[in-house]
């Protein structure tokens, strides 16, 4: 049982890393959103599994939030926004996707290098989860950094945050996990609303950050 539980947890966590790579690979907005839904789905499964093997029932709530809110609500909302704002469907990637892949691999290696020796004390399960979680976090950050587009920025941030929830779930008996995931959901909701607001207020012509960064103090001097 122990071994199997470990393997499944390992599988799911590793799956998240793979999906993060998929996120990095996308160059279409809709595809990106779909893959993110997948990302959240895997997260839900992983957290649920953690809840099951830790007998930590509050984690089911977290899993539920992940499933409903992030796998369903947010992606659809973003679909809407993309339609409403008429953001051009393709993501212009800074530097090629291939380079991102390489960078991502390096980051994963870094994550494992950092994490494995560290948690020698903690149990293997937590260690694996933590390593993968860190990898997901770093990949999410990479996504945020390498995409021009606000939607992809949001997606990157959310995948990053999925990694955090994964880590929180992996930490045995970590209290406040639910509260934290709720707080984060609020954060994300606000971000999405923010993107939405800026549009309907008609302040910015597009959610492209180049456009958003045009106005500056003291450009004149």
């Amino acid at each position: 049982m122990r071994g199997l539980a470990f393997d499944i947890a390992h599988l799911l966590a590793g799956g998240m890393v793979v999906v993060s790579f998929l996120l990095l690979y996308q160059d279409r907005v809709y595809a990106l959103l779909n893959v993110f839904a997948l990302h959240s789905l895997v997260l839900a499964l992983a957290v649920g599994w953690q809840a099951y093997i830790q007998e930590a029932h509050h984690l089911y709530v977290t899993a539920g939030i992940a499933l409903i809110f992030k796998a369903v609500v947010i992606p659809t909302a973003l679909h809407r926004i993309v339609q409403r704002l008429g953001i051009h469907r393709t993501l212009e990637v800074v530097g090629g996707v291939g380079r991102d892949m390489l960078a991502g691999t390096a980051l994963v290696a870094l994550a494992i290098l950092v994490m494995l020796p560290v948690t020698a004390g903690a149990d293997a399960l937590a260690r694996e989860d933590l390593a993968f979680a860190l990898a997901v976090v770093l990949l999410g950050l990479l996504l945020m950094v390498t995409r021009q587009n606000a939607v992809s920025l949001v997606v990157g941030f959310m995948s990053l945050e999925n990694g955090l929830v994964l880590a929180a779930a992996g930490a045995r008996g970590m209290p406040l996990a639910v509260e934290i995931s709720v707080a984060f959901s609020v954060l994300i909701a606000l971000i999405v609303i923010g993107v939405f607001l800026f549009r309907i207020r008609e302040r910015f012509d597009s959610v492209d950050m180049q456009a958003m960064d045009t106005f500056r103090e003291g450009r004149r001097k």
Partner: protein
Amino acid sequence: MNDVGFSAVTALLVVPASTALLLVLLPGYRVGARLNVGAALLSLLAAFTLFEARPDANLYLRVDDFNIYLIVLNNLVSFTTSVFSASYIAHELDTGRLTPAYLRFYHAMYQALLFAMNLALLANNIGLLWVAIELATLITVLMVGLYRTRAALEAAWKYFILGSLGIALALFGTILVYLAAQPTMGEGLPAMAWDRLLAHAKAFDPALLNLAFVFLLLGYGTKAGLVPLHAWLPDAHAEGPTPISAVLSGLLLNVALYAVLRFKMLMSANPAALAPGPLMVILGLLSLLFAGLMLYRRGDIKRLFAYSSIEHMGIITFAFGMGGPLANFAGLLHMTMHSLTKSAIFFAVGHISQVKGTQRISTIRGLTVTHPTLGWGLVAGVIAIAGMPPFGVFMSEFLVVSSTFARQPLLALPLVIGLLLAFGTLLWRVHGVAFGKPDGGPAAPVQASILPLLAHLALVLIAGIWLPGPLVAWFLHVAVLLG
């Protein structure tokens, strides 16, 4: 006795929260403003009662030598700022930059922010601390975007993204700390209660603690505006309403730094962990030098002082990075003095931008001629923030520089260069604003109340000459804890 203390703590949390709700419902901004002031005063009184009676720590909240004076400072500045904003915001309404609806929202958010910061300071639970700081971030984001101008929204957006990233990193660090604690302290809440953590810190896995500290430093450091994580700070200060700039610089930065220091205590309690000093020293020097350079080219007066805040956060971080009783004492003192002085400066800047109708430095001249009180107030504030007697910052800078040079001469040199550079560049700007021939710009009389400005300056002046005994005792105790 303790129930008194406990009720005080509850008051510190409940009063702002309930007032926030009330203000949301309450129409009419005048009442709102009064209520705002009243609530701030109430929580200030509650904070004062903490001197008399401290509650025992529980798993969620705790009052100790470190946060007690920060709480008082927090509520004091919030109170003065509310007084300032009560008269300031009305003028914003006249100029039509705001509508009453937004004003209601503003006052509600103000109290909510106060609640969040009090919570963050009182929190004994690192998870709670994180939640509180996140809350504070969200609220300030909304307030920075209050004016709905393009620039304001952009600043808010930038602040939002970078802030959330910092929050996320901080969370990861928090989780790591929990993981480090868990093996020795078992699962569950105690493993997140700060005082218990401190008690058991020796037994933690040092490597994990190190990793955790890296994330926490970057995460909360982003909130504290350390270079290279500072990007949100200048715009957020420049585009938000001035009272919020005052609160941001005066309080929120302190809160973020406070969080970092809490974890530094953990680090220094664990002998095997790597000394966090060098990291903080490097970040501090970076911030100091970078801000010093950036000050020179600023054209917007609020951005100018935002960069000066970055500079001072750098000095404080440097001081704590140096460690040792003198430097730590200096750091704590500097935190206090900086929040008082910088908020005072922002009050002055608010008045100036209102009477002059602009924030552009190049269009403000000879202020000491057209508005003597305001001009000299600004000059006094800048003199104080630049670390000159008879103001309190002088004492802290004196201690930092002299003690650093005695221990690490090579570190003191960049520090001194940075200080001189920042002083020169800041003074260069302010000289132009305060002196010289006043150009014929609008010279409207000051409407908002000038009292908060004077009150803060008076406090800083007194502190520069004489520090009250209890404060010194707390500082010394905390300085020892900080290692």
